[in-house]
């Protein structure tokens, strides 16, 4: 048995270190370390509750709007205020834009460049992977950056800027949209759709969204030449590298549900492990047994959570707490969202814990599902009708904001006492996925997914694929 310490990982958001125990060229055990601690949960103590809207987006530059949305949701519950229709549409459009831009960036900038590595030089698809996907110099980067930039102009219209907007409020949005802006938003969504249909999928978004099982996906692949589209190129190398056979997670999928509208949600809240379960915030706990944080090992609901650094704690190996649902490890992200929702292809891909392939496909599938909704939401905007309701802050309240970031379930637990923030606890998507062991020694989702993967000298970059398949956001993880 030999021990490998792997890091710094890049093309993930933030810094990440993984310790691997390797035997016979295969990972036997993994420990994931989130090596950066800033202390937002302490910074927020004593602040005016609405100031959370300034601080929390700055936890993460890539999930910034999602952090805002979680704080706005917790505050709206505390204030008993709800957004008018335009406000809900604005939240969904602003969040949808960030989430889809993140999926798009992940595929092209973070995930695919690994297939241009020298380690794959002998594969038949390698030359094209280099020309198309190589980091910085590949032809995709030159097109993708402008396409992403143009799509994010939605934030210029609706959120002032991205990242770090203050537009999302408990009662809606600060930024009414006028008639001309609504037209321009619809136009930029169409332009992004055109890019996706021409270059990423080579097919209508609706046709991708309608792929309803693995056989249909295979048939779609086999009916098209490799150079048909970037999705087709991905499917080719995914098959050759066996990405559907590595990186199985715990098989328990958790989603807070997203895109609330008129009393319902586009994607439902719940947990799916073969059966669908209701998800209550009270069933979520975090323990600090393997984190450099003080406190007893017993898990706590975040409403009673605390964050107290203890850098020299024996047996700890990360700043990350261990979140659990009813005591169980869960995976979160696009695969979980669509499996919980019941999309048949996602459900099939999610069986047996999923895989690198399952996560990548579901991210792209979600782009195909959500962009048409964004077009509908933009058309539904009513210039001249209200965008924001005002409410008043109570002196005392306990509330929870549960939203979905691109990378999965994001929860903010807020306590207000004497008009100030008395406690603020954040459980982010990668806190779930990159959780350390809990007090009973059960490893987190990535720690499980790495076991059995080839590692060490001469191994393909499979470890890199498994880690990046979760699209980790390390700055959110520990915050």
């Amino acid at each position, binding site marked *: 048995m030999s021990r490998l310490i792997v*890091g710094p990982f890049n093309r993930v958001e933030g810094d*990440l270190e993984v310790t691997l125990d390797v035997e016979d060229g295969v990972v036997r055990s993994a420990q994931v370390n989130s*090596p950066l601690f800033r202390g937002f949960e302490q*910074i927020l103590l004593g602040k005016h509750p609405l100031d959370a809207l300034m601080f929390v987006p*700055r936890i993460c530059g890539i999930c910034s709007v999602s952090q805002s949305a979680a704080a706005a949701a917790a505050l709206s519950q505390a204030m008993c205020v709800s957004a008018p229709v335009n406000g809900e549409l604005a939240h969904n459009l602003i969040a949808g834009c960030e989430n889809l831009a993140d999926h798009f960036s992940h595929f092209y900038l973070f995930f695919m460049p690994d297939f241009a590595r020298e380690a794959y030089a002998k594969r038949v698809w390698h030359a094209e992977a280099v020309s198309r996907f190589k980091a910085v110099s590949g032809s995709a980067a030159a097109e993708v950056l402008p396409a992403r930039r143009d799509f994010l102009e939605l934030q210029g219209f609706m959120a*002032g800027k991205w990242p770090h907007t*203050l537009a999302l409020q408990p009662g809606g949005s600060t*930024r009414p949209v006028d008639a001309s802006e609504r037209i321009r938003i619809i136009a930029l969504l169409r332009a992004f759709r055109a890019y996706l249909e021409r270059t990423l999928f080579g097919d209508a978004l609706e046709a991708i969204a309608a792929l309803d099982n693995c056989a249909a996906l295979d048939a779609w692949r086999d009916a098209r030449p490799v150079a048909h589209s970037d999705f087709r190129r991905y499917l080719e190398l995914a098959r050759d590298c066996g990405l559907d056979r590595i990186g199985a997670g715990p098989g328990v999928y958790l989603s807070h549900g997203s895109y609330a509208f008129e009393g319902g949600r586009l994607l439902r809240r719940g947990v799916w492990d073969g059966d669908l379960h209701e998800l209550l915030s009270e069933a979520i706990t975090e323990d600090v047994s393997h984190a450099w944080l003080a406190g007893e090992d017993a898990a706590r609901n975040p409403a009673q959570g605390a964050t107290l650094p203890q850098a020299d704690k024996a047996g700890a190996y990360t700043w990350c707490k261990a979140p659990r649902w009813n005591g169980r490890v869960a995976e979160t992200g696009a695969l979980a969202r669509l499996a919980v929702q019941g999309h048949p292809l996602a459900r099939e891909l999610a069986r047996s814990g999923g895989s690198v392939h399952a996560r990548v496909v579901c991210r792209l599938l979600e782009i195909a599902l959500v962009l048409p909704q964004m077009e509908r939401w933009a058309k539904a905007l009513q210039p001249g009708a209200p965008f924001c309701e005002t409410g008043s802050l109570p002196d005392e309240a306990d509330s929870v904001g549960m939203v979905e970031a691109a990378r999965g379930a994001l929860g903010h637990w807020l306590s207000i006492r004497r008009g100030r923030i008395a406690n603020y606890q954040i459980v982010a998507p990668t806190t779930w996925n990159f959780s350390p062991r809990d007090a009973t020694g059960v490893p987190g989702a990535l720690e499980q997914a790495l076991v059995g993967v080839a590692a060490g000298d001469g191994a393909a970059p499979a470890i890199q694929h498994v880690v990046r398949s979760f699209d980790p956001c390390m*700055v959110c993880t520990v915050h």
Partner: protein
Amino acid sequence: MSDARLNLLWLQSGGCGGCTMSLLCSDAANVVQMLDDAGINLLWHPSLSEASCDEVTALLEDCADGRTALDILCVEGALLRGPNGSGRFHMLAGTGVPMIDWVRRLARRARWTLAVGTCAAYGGVTAAGANPADACGLQYDGAQLGGALGPQYASGNGERVINIAGCPTHPGWVTDTLLAVALGDFGARDVDAIGRPRFYADQLVHHGCSRNEYYEFKASAEAPSQLGCLMENLGCKGTQAHADCNTRAWNGSGSCTNGGYACISCTEPGFEEPGHPFGETPKIAGIPIGLPTDMPRAWFVALAALSKSATPKRVRENATSDHAAVTPAIKRTGLK
């Protein structure tokens, strides 16, 4: 312009990565290509580069030991000194060494050292509240010279750290600074008293604000989503904050004030602890404490009283509406 290409290394520490995300929204058709065209060779960037793990550690060693020329060092995020001066709140993964130590070592070799964003410049949001991570900027601790590199630090070109402050910083502020450095014509006279590039820091956010007519008449918004001026009630510091946000748009056409919320003066040291809620304007006797830069208080009070009394009905009513409830009168202007 020198013929030699400049090597750029980009590191992230105690921040959110948002300045990189902002940079990728650059108006340049392809920001990476733009830097390449300017003669800047991207040695490594954590979000963009292929090299990972041991390849990166080897590159950092080569730069720190002078085997690879390090022309431009960009640092994003605050430097974390805690706990107890150990720097352990951010150990660079795979190296067992605190990031602040890596940055100090590399900064000794860099010809130019750039703090990208307010965290790297002054500490920023990471230094807010009780500052649990003991965060500071590269060469400032809040408004005080010092920080991770110390007041005496000068990079290879003899200059202090260039502070491209902003939370996040604007993509254009970063690319203009890098391109000016590459052209060889960026020096001490091009930064203001706290190290910010003057091309954007010698301006006020107020310049070009789309709410200027409301400001002129002191017709103020009272609640989020209303069209009026944000200074009197909703915490806006655009008349004091140094930046060109309303003449250099964000994400195509945006800015904070255009987005309906206050400028929080995020290019300024200490903006993270204003001493009042961000969305409220502190006042004494109904007059905002923070008056426009360069304007004597008595003038402001007199002008405000006059302009309030002269506010047209259209401006007054629209100020507290979320759409133009009253439209401008149609007037023939051709002969005037």
